[in-house]
């Protein structure tokens, strides 16, 4: 038997798995995110369904070997409907003791650990809090361990390229990538092409990295590995035919804003101030100057919100973005936009709060802030995206609501959605319906207080239009003339009409649909935002066991779809899993007098499927 034939028969015998969770973990300087992204790309090209989740440390460059400097990237890929990055890890790649100790708790019993033994020095062990080397003391007996001196292997592989020790060691992540690609039968082509492109100006670095990938792959093929460590097959998923790409929520949201501007036929001014995890929007949009988008990095959050409002006053669509603490600073300006009834889109990429909280971790705790967090009676629409790809459509919807109802709109994303990625069947933009904005141009009968009788939107007349010169401001305005008015009855009327306008949006949004299951029944699991993936899987599993449970996922947080109350009342029980202390639960109770039950998780980590599944069981058994 030739070598090739031998390999082929090995591959045929390869173990077949429905889905696998791999986590790459190392120092923040180890390049684990890059490794993960490359592996993701190869996996997408292979044809698996997948979801990924990067877990960054808050420190940019923590001291080497520190537990708080561990950066991880998790990917779940499989043959069927993947919607979360996975509950537990099957394969853990740990580049040092800190990465091992911080990620071990999520590894399944019998899971595979690949470690770089070179990094298990006394110093690193102490830094990670080990008193004995876990590779020797039997503490990993529950798992399968593949200890490799990766550093030595890499230095050997890159030797011909004359790299210094420092640069040579940096290729460790590519070696590991090569080995992992072997393990799951992925093609190295895309990664190799990517390296050639990335290091086009430094071909020796490209070559060294490529050599490292190939060496890692060859190691898997040739080294005598412990039994049970062999090539795994994860069959291709049965995904809808079409053109695909990977996207993070931040990317999809940025593209959605650009798309929304085109559908509204309006230029966009995006004004923002750097804040984790929201900055990616500013980064992406500032690179899209070929579109009608002007970006502005303001001096602070308030200035960013105000510049966006100024842009809307001048006839563009102002968009501002931040995370919770920054949104708090913008609150007064958002109220000005509510008072003057100017369109504005405010994106909140939520993170763990309060205050600085957990800036790199995810949470859904700004729902109260979004719905209620302004002075005065200032309702405004709040909508939430549920998956990375959903961010595209939700951004378009935010632009539609803002421009059609002359109001600020709050768009909720979160740290998980922003950074997580999933394959996206690229939509055909030509199929999207336009909602062109017509600025007022007719001086006859013009008043800045005029409203569209149907939507109640205030007229939008932009500076530069002859004959429509007018003044607006934060002081209460007369219902008819728009002039300053301190009239008691007028203030009541204006407050009510602003509220009616927002409440009335319910007539212009789709009815709430049931994502999975029946329209009535024993239990509805109601979610919003990034809990979508975990709820979806938990409900699917429970339903497969014959349980009477449905999944309802809300996009329109305020105002809510007109049929939502009746829909929820068709269920005996309502369970709301949230990454907060129960903010949607309170809204549902207050609005509909429904005794919804909360399932809360405020750890900075997304829900695991099994956590929701367990609660579904508990709720149904507790009948």
């Amino acid at each position, binding site marked *: 038997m030739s070598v090739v034939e031998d390999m082929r028969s090995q591959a045929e015998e390869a173990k077949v798995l429905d889905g696998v969770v791999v986590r790459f973990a190392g120092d923040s300087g180890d390049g684990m995110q890059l490794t993960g992204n490359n592996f993701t790309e190869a996996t997408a090209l292979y044809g698996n369904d997948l979801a990924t989740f990067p877990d960054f440390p808050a420190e940019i460059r923590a001291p080497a070997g520190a537990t708080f400097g561990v950066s991880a990237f998790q990917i779940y890929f499989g043959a069927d409907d993947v919607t979360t990055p996975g509950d537990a890890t099957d394969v853990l790649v740990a580049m040092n003791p800190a990465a091992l100790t911080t990620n071990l708790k999520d590894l399944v019993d019998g899971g595979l650990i690949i470690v770089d033994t070179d990094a298990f020095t006394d110093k690193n062990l102490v830094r990670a809090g080990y008193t004995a080397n876990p590779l020797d003391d039997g503490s990993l007996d529950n798992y399968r361990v593949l200890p490799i001196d990766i550093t030595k292997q890499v230095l050997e592989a890159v030797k011909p390229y004359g790299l210094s020790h420092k640069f040579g060691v940096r290729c460790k992540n590519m070696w590991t990538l090569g080995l992992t690609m072997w393990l799951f039968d992925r093609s190295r082509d895309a990664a190799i092409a990517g390296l050639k492109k990335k290091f086009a100006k430094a071909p020796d670095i490209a070559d060294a990295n490529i050599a490292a990938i190939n060496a890692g792959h060859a190691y898997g093929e040739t080294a005598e590995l412990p039994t049970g460590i062999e090539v795994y097959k994860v069959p291709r998923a049965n995904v809808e035919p079409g053109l695909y790409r990977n996207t993070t929520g931040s990317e999809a949201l940025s593209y959605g804003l650009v798309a929304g501007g085109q559908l509204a036929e309006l230029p966009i001014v995006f004004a923002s101030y750097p804040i984790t995890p929201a900055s990616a929007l500013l980064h992406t949009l500032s690179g899209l100057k070929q579109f009608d988008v002007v970006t502005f990095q303001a001096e602070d959050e308030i200035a960013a919100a*105000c510049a966006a409002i100024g842009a809307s006053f001048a006839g563009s669509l102002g968009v501002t973005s931040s995370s919770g603490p920054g949104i708090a600073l913008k609150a007064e300006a958002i109220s000005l936009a509510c008072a003057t009834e100017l369109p504005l889109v405010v994106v909140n990429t939520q993170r763990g709060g309060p205050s600085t909280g957990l800036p790199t971790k995810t949470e859904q705790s700004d729902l109260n802030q979004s719905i209620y967090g302004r002075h005065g009676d200032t309702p405004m629409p709040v909508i939430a995206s549920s998956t990375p790809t959903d961010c595209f459509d939700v951004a378009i919807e935010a632009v539609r609501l803002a421009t059609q109802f002359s109001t600020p709109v709050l768009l909720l994303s979160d740290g998980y959605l922003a950074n997580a990625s999933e394959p996206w069947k690229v939509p055909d933009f030509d199929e999207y319906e336009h909602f062109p904005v017509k600025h007022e141009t007719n001086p006859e009968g013009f008043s800045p207080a005029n409203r569209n009788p149907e939507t109640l939107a205030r007229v939008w007349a932009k500076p530069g239009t002859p004959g429509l010169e007018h003044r607006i401001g934060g002081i209460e305005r007369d219902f008819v003339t728009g002039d300053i008015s301190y009239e008691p009855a007028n203030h009541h009327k204006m407050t009510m009409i602003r509220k009616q306008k927002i409440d009335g949006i319910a007539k212009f949004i789709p009815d709430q649909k049931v994502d999975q299951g029946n329209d009535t029944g024993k239990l509805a699991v109601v979610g919003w935002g990034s809990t979508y993936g975990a709820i979806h899987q938990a409900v699917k599993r429970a339903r497969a066991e014959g349980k009477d449970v449905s999944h309802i996922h809300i996009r329109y947080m305020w105002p809510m779809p007109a049929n939502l109350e009746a829909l929820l009342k068709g269920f005996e029980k309502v369970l709301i899993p949230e990454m907060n202390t129960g903010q949607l639960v309170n809204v549902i109770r207050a609005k509909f007098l429904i005794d919804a039950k909360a399932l809360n998780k405020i750890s900075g980590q997304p829900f695991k499927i099994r956590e929701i599944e367990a609660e579904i069981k508990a709720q149904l058994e507790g009948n």
Partner: protein
Amino acid sequence: MNAPLTLKDYETDQEVRWCPGCGDYAILKTIQKYMPTSGISKENTVFVSGIGCSSRFPYYMNTYGFHTIHGRAPSIATGVKLANPELDVWVITGDGDGFSIGGNHMIHVLRRNVDLQIILFNNEIYGLTKGQYSPTSKVGTRSPSTPDGSIDAPLDPCSFAIGAGAQFVARSIDTEAKHLTPILERAHQHRGASFVEIYQNCPVYNDGNFDYVKDKKTAADSRLVLEHGKPMLFGADNQKGIRLNLNTLALEVVTLGEDGVTEADILVHDEGNKVIAQMLTGLESGKFPEPIGVLYCAETRKAYTEEVYDQRIAVREARGPANVNDLLRSGHTWTVS
């Protein structure tokens, strides 16, 4: 051809609600009178203000106007210019609005050099909130919040503006239309952020605060009227002047004919000299006359929004036409069949 516009065309039907005798009235009239000569149509003119007595200004100007929130007018105005750089945008602010709550925005709008006319009505007091001392109040100002006199040192708005990188900095006086009008015109012509401080009397809470400069009897000695290319002379017969002492590198008051001083010793005002401009803003009140006029004017940088749009044009030329479908298909894609 339409009849040329007059002051009347810039008045609104709103009743002007400042206190009787307020310096704001005079400034309003001067600006309304200047506007028809500004060369800009009414519809392309925008007044943006923050909060305070002076910030009511836009309601009285028959142009586009936005009365916004406390301290934020520079940011709102920046957004207006980013959306439409063709608009002619004026920012009306006060000492509390622009230099206390909005101080940060003032730094950045000047540093960025956004093409705006920023008009500061400096009355050295909080009027609308009933008379508290402000960041420009002189030490010892007695007010409801400082009954025993204020302690903290005031800031000088023109010095602040030059420090922040403003390219046009001038100072004038509310009731002196003859001096103020040409300064408004200069500010308007200047491309980039133009900063004009106007000493404004608040007869209710800080009456007579600027009398030492305004009083006709003492004005000659108490003010230094700056004119580009002219020696810095002042006093009843222009017999006094400002000299740069080369030993101390400080400005000093000298008298022509005394100690051999001749006109050749007197500094000639050069609007482009930032160092001297900064020295002029730092002159101690009482010991020195108060400089009014254009303190500093340079056009070394393009206006911010011009640069923004230049960069955009360059990128567009390099990248070609934009298409959302192409954008969505950029980067790595794969086909599932």
